[in-house]
């Protein structure tokens, strides 16, 4: 298998009184060149799981393996796009995309790569601009180009379009799919939007919360581009909605119990 999660568990505040188990016993196998979404309500640990693949977060139990190699820390072979674009404001758009290539490739080569991937996200005309001059959607496209420029084996995306408006998000969905079709990178995409997951992915992994765990895992066998009113798409959305409703109810109930407001 390309990317393997073996019995992954995560606890915060380990061996202290407020130890908190986010999830445990997570097993996933992901094939190369697939577009996989991890979907779940807030607090299920989906972002933590992605950070573990990036090597930014340690596993408390188990191991994650990429092509058989255990992940122990961050590495350019795993590119990440965050919810915040996280671009460097003191650099131009081009220099931002060249940032991970410094010392690894010649300047000329780095420039050519930056140009290539900026063209892919339709921003080659903005390559000399600074990030404060760009809209949120444009910034996120630069972040995608920057991650791709490293030529990673897998592209990790942590709710990359969560902070964008509806229209921009639709445009970026289209762009991301065409990038994926062109590069065939394995994409691991974390989102809380059911529509987004079903619209984009080959495979959707649904996580529940308290405790965090996988509650469903299915392949979406609808040809792309997927229309919003496609019956199969609507069917999948309904199915996932039902699955998640129970989880969301559970969270709500717990939160309301904690409040225990009295009206007398």
């Amino acid at each position, binding site marked *: 298998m390309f990317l393997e999660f073996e019995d992954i568990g995560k606890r915060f505040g380990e061996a202290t009184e407020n130890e908190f188990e986010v999830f445990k016993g997570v097993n996933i196998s992901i094939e190369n060149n697939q577009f996989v979404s991890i979907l779940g309500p807030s607090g299920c640990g989906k972002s933590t799981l992605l950070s573990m693949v990036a090597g930014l977060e340690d596993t408390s139990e188990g191991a994650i393996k990429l092509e058989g190699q255990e992940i122990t820390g*961050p590495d350019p072979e795993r590119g*990440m796009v*965050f919810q915040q674009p*996280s671009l*460097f*404001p*003191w650099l131009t758009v081009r220099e931002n995309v060249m940032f991970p290539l*410094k010392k690894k490739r010649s300047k000329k080569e780095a420039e050519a790569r930056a140009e290539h991937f900026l063209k892919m996200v339709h921003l080659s005309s903005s390559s000399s601009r600074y990030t404060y001059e760009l809209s949120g959607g444009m910034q996120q496209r630069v972040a995608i180009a*920057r991650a791709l420029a490293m030529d990673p084996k897998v592209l990790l995306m942590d709710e990359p379009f969560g902070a964008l408006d509806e229209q921009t998000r639709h445009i970026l969905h289209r762009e991301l799919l065409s990038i994926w079709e062109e590069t065939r990178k394995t994409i691991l995409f974390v989102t809380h939007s059911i529509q987004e997951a079903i619209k984009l992915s080959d495979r959707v992994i649904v996580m529940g919360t308290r405790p965090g765990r996988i509650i469903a895992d299915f392949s979406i066998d609808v040809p792309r581009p997927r229309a919003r009113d496609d019956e199969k798409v609507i069917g999948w959305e309904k199915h996932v909605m039902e699955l998640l409703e129970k989880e969301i109810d559970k969270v709500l109930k717990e939160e309301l119990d904690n409040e225990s407001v009295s009206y007398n």
Partner: protein
Amino acid sequence: MNLSLITKRIVFLVVVAGIWQGIYALNIFEDIIFPSPLTVVSSLYEGFADGDLVTALGASFRHLFSGLILAILFGTVLGVLLGKSREADETAGMYLVALQSIPSIVWVPLAIMIFGFSEAAVVFVVVLGGTFVMALNVRSAIRSVPPHLLRAARTMGVSGMSQFFRVEIPASVPYFMSGLRLAWAFSWRALMAGELLSNGPGLGYSLRYAQDYARMDQVIGIIIIIGVIGAVVDQLVFSKLEKNVMKRWGIL
């Protein structure tokens, strides 16, 4: 700046001078403690014409620049150390705040005892005036580097020293600029305190000299120069620089 803004400011200045002249004309105060605006202007003109004020200004800027450069240097090193090492900050950070709260004039007797009535004593006071505020700002500059930028850098294989130079230093430039502006302001005040009690040359020394000879016109004239330089340097150099950086860094 639009024209009406400049007009408003000039009119205000004219009105203040007019009121001043009016009170002078009433002859309530003796000339020696209340000179007319015209006397002040002419004494300023005299001072520049015979070169006394030019020499004093030159000396003051010499003290300021040597002191400020040292203050920026020491302050930056100290600030980076405290910003990067929690241990160092827990141990010494509190004392830095204490040192910063000491008015610079307090250092003057110490400086005179070490360096005598020399220019070195003045520079010493300027250095102490600027170093601590610079250090405090550099410390917060290093601390306020957005963690998401550091995480992003790590996923691109940039960590350790190369992360410090390629991410932390450039990311802390905006607060570094604020530090520069404050270090300048504090050094300028310290400079005047130091020079007032020195044996010259310098603007502060000229000010005390004028006092010794009961030249209120010169005293007021020099106070005006000190105020104008302070405002002009802050507005035209440091505030502008800081604003440009803040904009570029997406903070404004």
